[in-house]
């Protein structure tokens, strides 16, 4: 590589390109063709006291923000946003920053492991020379009996596996994480399909909107792409000198987004559809238009009552929404992760149709049409097949289904029926502990690759991934393992290794009109690494949207509760994401924004309800749903409906290292296996009951309970 690009040229490119940081290509640790030299002849990137910056992509969630990693003497020191990246524009969230605690985590899998299934005491280190033939043998299984379960992000590995499975006629790899299900990605896409006639993920132009109605979309914390939405939120508030955007949030439990809203409307879970329809009707009336067909039969007053709010409030909000030129309604994970989620999502999207913001600034656009993730329903099918012993080999990478999937689904039991389970986990997570082989992939900061199709990007983006440090342990890129094994198994793909694959995949981009080009792939490759990916300079969103025919919808409304016995249960993801963040001490120690709690799981209860039930702060309660139960300490949370309780997702690990294990409880035990029409988990219309256990376990809060709540 370095014979093609001299260092001088690098610097020229770097100087010309990077706005703030000098970004060098990954000639150093990225190279698997490392030449060992005495340390007295230090390579330039390794000069003592000098920083070397690498552009890469954050793999901590599926959003795919661009990052720049500062390394010094071969160690990753700081991670910041890539200022040029079209998604996050130099910003980064707490999760992304902690990637280095994943890289340097002492609890990583240090090398390939063979273990007697489920018996961690009998695990033994193996070698890659022994492990690759195992993979190769596994790939020789009948095509229909091979299954791949990958993480949500559409990355190079997904493309590689897809290509391979297609070549031998195996089922396409599944992509799943709990976060994707909480976000309702599939529902969102299907709702767009039904409302606009295009199966694309909608893009919400928050920055230019004036009145925003969010239905359970916690876009400031976890939903789709929190960094880019946070930036847009900031702009919505203050970027326009004269107009300050107005945010209204409809949800039962005040999330961070609702906390930042100008108005928080605590509607009952399950009433989002009714409220959206009622709003549609009222908005139409306020604009002097005919109400849409779906909303004609709805009685706004009854809807408000069903939702548990004042009818007058609904009318006021509808007027506000109707009066603004840039109104926007966002269907979030909380609203659409329900039985009727698809219809709810449609009803909310319909509000946008109502104010005619489609394809306009401050409105709704559509992005690409590829499936953003695998729906949970398809994962169910896989579990079904596993149970029926139709799966001989299961490969798992980037997902931790044993932890993330609802317990009632019985993934763990199904896993036991699969003869060979091979995990490519970087960490000894719950799923890896139940696998036959753990063949650890590099950590994202040691890997090559790319991620395409970023959920909240307003243009085509390929975000590049490159190693910023040499691999610390005896790990191997999963793509390389598969390529080698596939070749040995007699079903080779035409790539020599991972880098070759990535390079060949990006060849079409050379002439695809991005913000740079190159005469040939090597030069293009170096720029690709230098800039942290490839994208076009102009916004490229699908503005050609029109409402397809609407269908009347009917909602059954929220479940009725036995007062003070039953509660709506809200399970919400936190900064720990799908739970993979639980082994990052910084994330554990970072105070939860709303409660300032750290390091544990808690149950949020409205103080009024808690008083009625005689529940105090830090009392351990048992939360029971028809699907399971868990115990956790109570946090008396003032910003939640009195008939609702909420539990954060992400803790309760039984594996995953010293900081995650044995901490808190996993609400996956409480969740149903039910899915909505689009195949996303219907997690937000569960009814739970609580009971005191008589135990107390103080929660680690940063706030002073006495100072904030006046309680001693």
């Amino acid at each position: 590589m370095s014979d093609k690009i001299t260092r001088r040229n690098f610097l020229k490119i770097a100087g010309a390109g990077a706005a703030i940081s000098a970004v060098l290509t990954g000639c150093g640790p990225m190279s698997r063709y490392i030449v060992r030299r005495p340390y007295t002849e230090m390579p330039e990137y390794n000069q003592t006291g000098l920083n070397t910056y690498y552009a890469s992509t954050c793999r901590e969630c599926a959003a795919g923000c661009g990052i720049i990693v500062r390394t010094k003497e071969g160690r990753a020191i700081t991670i910041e946003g890539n200022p040029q990246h079209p998604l996050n524009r130099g910003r980064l969230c707490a999760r992304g920053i902690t990637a280095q605690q994943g890289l340097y985590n002492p609890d990583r899998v240090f090398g390939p492991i063979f273990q007697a299934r489920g018996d961690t005491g009998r695990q033994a280190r193996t070698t890659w020379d022994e492990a690759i033939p195992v993979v190769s043998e596994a790939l020789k299984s009948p095509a229909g009996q091979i299954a791949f379960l990958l993480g949500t992000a559409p990355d190079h590995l997904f493309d590689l596996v897809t290509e391979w499975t297609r070549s031998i006629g195996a089922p396409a790899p599944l992509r799943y994480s709990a976060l994707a299900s909480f976000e309702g990605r599939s529902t969102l896409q299907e709702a767009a399909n039904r409302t606009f006639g295009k199966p694309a993920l909608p893009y919400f132009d928050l920055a230019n909107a004036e009145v925003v109605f969010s239905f359970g979309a916690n876009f400031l914390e976890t939903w789709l792409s929190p960094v880019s939405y946070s930036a847009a939120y900031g702009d919505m508030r203050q970027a326009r000198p004269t107009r300050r955007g107005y945010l209204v949030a409809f949800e039962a439990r005040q999330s961070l987004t609702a906390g930042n809203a100008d108005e928080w409307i605590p509607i009952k879970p399950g009433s989002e559809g009714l409220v959206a329809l009622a709003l549609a009707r009222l908005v139409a009336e306020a604009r002097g238009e005919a109400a849409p067909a779906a909303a004609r039969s709805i009685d706004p007053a009854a809807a408000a009552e069903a939702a548990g709010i004042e009818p007058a409030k609904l009318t006021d909000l509808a007027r506000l929404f109707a009066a603004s030129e840039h109104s926007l309604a966002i269907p979030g994970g909380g609203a659409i992760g329900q039985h009727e989620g698809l219809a709810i999502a449609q009803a909310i999207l319909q509000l946008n149709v109502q104010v005619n913001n489609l394809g306009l600034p401050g409105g709704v656009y559509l992005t690409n049409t590829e499936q953003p993730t695998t729906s949970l329903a398809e994962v169910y099918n896989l579990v079904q097949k596993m149970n029926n012993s139709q799966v001989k080999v299961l490969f798992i990478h980037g997902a931790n289904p044993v932890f993330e999937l609802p317990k009632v689904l019985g993934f763990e039991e199904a896993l036991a029926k699969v003869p060979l389970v091979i995990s490519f986990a970087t960490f000894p997570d719950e799923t890896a502990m139940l696998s036959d082989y753990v063949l650890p992939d590099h950590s994202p900061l040691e890997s090559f690759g790319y991620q395409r199709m970023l959920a909240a990007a307003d243009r085509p983006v390929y975000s590049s991934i490159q190693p910023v440090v040499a691999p610390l342990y005896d790990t191997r890129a999963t793509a390389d393992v598969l390529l080698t094994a596939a070749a040995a198994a007699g079903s080779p793909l035409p790539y020599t290794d991972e880098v070759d694959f990535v390079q060949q995949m990006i060849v079409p981009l050379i002439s695809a009109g991005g913000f740079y080009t190159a005469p040939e792939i090597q030069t293009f490759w170096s720029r690709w690494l230098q800039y942290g990916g490839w994208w076009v300079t102009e916004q490229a969103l699908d503005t050609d949207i029109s409402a397809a025919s609407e269908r009347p919808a009917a909602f059954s409304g929220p479940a009725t509760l036995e007062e003070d016995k039953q509660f709506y249960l809200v399970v919400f993801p936190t900064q720990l994401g799908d739970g993979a963040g639980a082994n990052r001490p910084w994330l554990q120690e970072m105070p939860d924004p709303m409660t300032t709690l750290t390091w544990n799981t808690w149950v949020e209860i409205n103080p009024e309800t808690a008083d009625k039930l005689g529940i105090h702060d830090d009392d351990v309660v048992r939360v029971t749903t028809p699907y399971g139960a868990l115990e956790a300490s109570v946090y008396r949370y003032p910003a939640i409906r009195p008939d609702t309780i909420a539990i954060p997702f992400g803790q309760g690990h039984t594996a995953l290292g010293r900081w995650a294990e044995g901490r808190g409880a996993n609400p996956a035990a409480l969740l149903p296996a039910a899915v909505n029409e689009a195949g996303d988990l219907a997690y937000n219309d569960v009814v739970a009951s609580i009971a005191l256990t008589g135990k107390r376990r103080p929660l680690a809060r940063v706030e002073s309970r006495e100072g904030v709540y006046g309680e001693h």
Partner: protein
Amino acid sequence: MAAETKLFGKLKTTEQEHEDPKEQLMFDPRPREELNRMVMEMMTTTTRKFWLWAIGLGAGVAVLLFGAWGYMISTGMWVTGLRRPIYWGVFIVTFVFWIGISHAGTFVSAILRVFKSEFRRPFTRAAELMTTFGLAAGALYPLIHLGRVWVFYFMVPYPNARWLWPNFRSPLVWDLLAITTYLLSSTIYLYLPLVPDLAMARDRTTGLRHTAYKILALGWRGTEAEWFRLKKAIQIFAFAIIPVMFSVHTIVSWDFAVSQVAGWHSTIFGPYFIIGAILSGVSAVVTILYVLRSTLKHMDYFLRPEHFDALGKLILVFSMSWAYFFFNDYLLGWYGGEAAVRQILTLHASGPAAWVWYTMLICNIVIPWLTLWNRKIRRTPWLMFIITLLINVGMYLERYTIIPLTLGHQRTPFDWGVYTPQPVEISIVLGTFCLFTFLYLIMSRLIPLVPVWEVQEGQVAHTLRKVGKAEVPSVTELD
């Protein structure tokens, strides 16, 4: 010697009328040699109980104080109960407490000496010893509470390779200087009147003790010139040490008063702390005197109800003064209306730790006011012992209220906090109590705890004279 002879007027209360003047030490003279013998016996008698106590306290110092402190040094300050926002806890509370205790010696000795209060004579030394040992115990705390005690010398102003001078704007440096000055001057002030007694002891001991006393007595022979110089020196020191004493506790109070902490930033803290210190110190003198009286041989001859009575009156006066300052501090803080201060004062009286505040008021005001007006109570040593002990509990709690409780409720309610002393802290605090008692115990057998020459001098000056039929006490004013 005699310059002027004053006759006491007729005492008014009937009770006192019936009092036999012989009950007073000054009118119950004994021959000089007998006094010397009594004091020597007091010094040299060691019972089994004494040794048990000495060993117990010594072990207490070793384990509770140095053991716990060593443990804290080796593992870190996390063993304390300190936390954001309460960065000072019982260490500083106990520091202020000991510095307060140390005021007694100077007060009782120097001020009463300057004002020629005759009742001071038998217990000046006991009080001065308290000053020195109180300071010794208290002066440990600025070291104990340091996060990095091994570099404590960064605070000391001396030319150094670091090219750094301490920050003289910091009250902690003032503290360092004030406490060192006070420790030095109070030690000298303890030593000066000790010289004739050491010489007395030198002449009545043999062996190692004799050698030690010989060195310490500086060749005292008791000539007129020596007495003249000694008295001059004591006189000068008695005057000079009073402002030092005032400065020390004022400066300790400035640790708090010059800060920006709501509830600390009070202009009245200087005198308030001094009055508190004297109240606490004089009470501690009574406590100690009771212990001395009931444990040391012949002490009941030297220490009599009259002394408890006189000190009881002083305590009552200081309790009232303390109440006055407390009221001033509290009222004006409340009246000033600064939200944070009001909040703190409200929480002191109604918060979760309100019991501390109420106990303080009961111990410092209610108990002395209800009891000390009564002559009988004042003259009952064991009652005085209990009362003064309670006053010191109250004074300890006063400092506790001012330090951790005030720090815990500052301007941002988000950062409020509750402080609970942890075992290591409590151990160290108890350890310094052991240290103080241990030093006192050992010293009681090494030096004459009663300034025997002062008692003799007093007894010489006091006589009962016949005026007509009545025997009237009279005192020859010395100097």
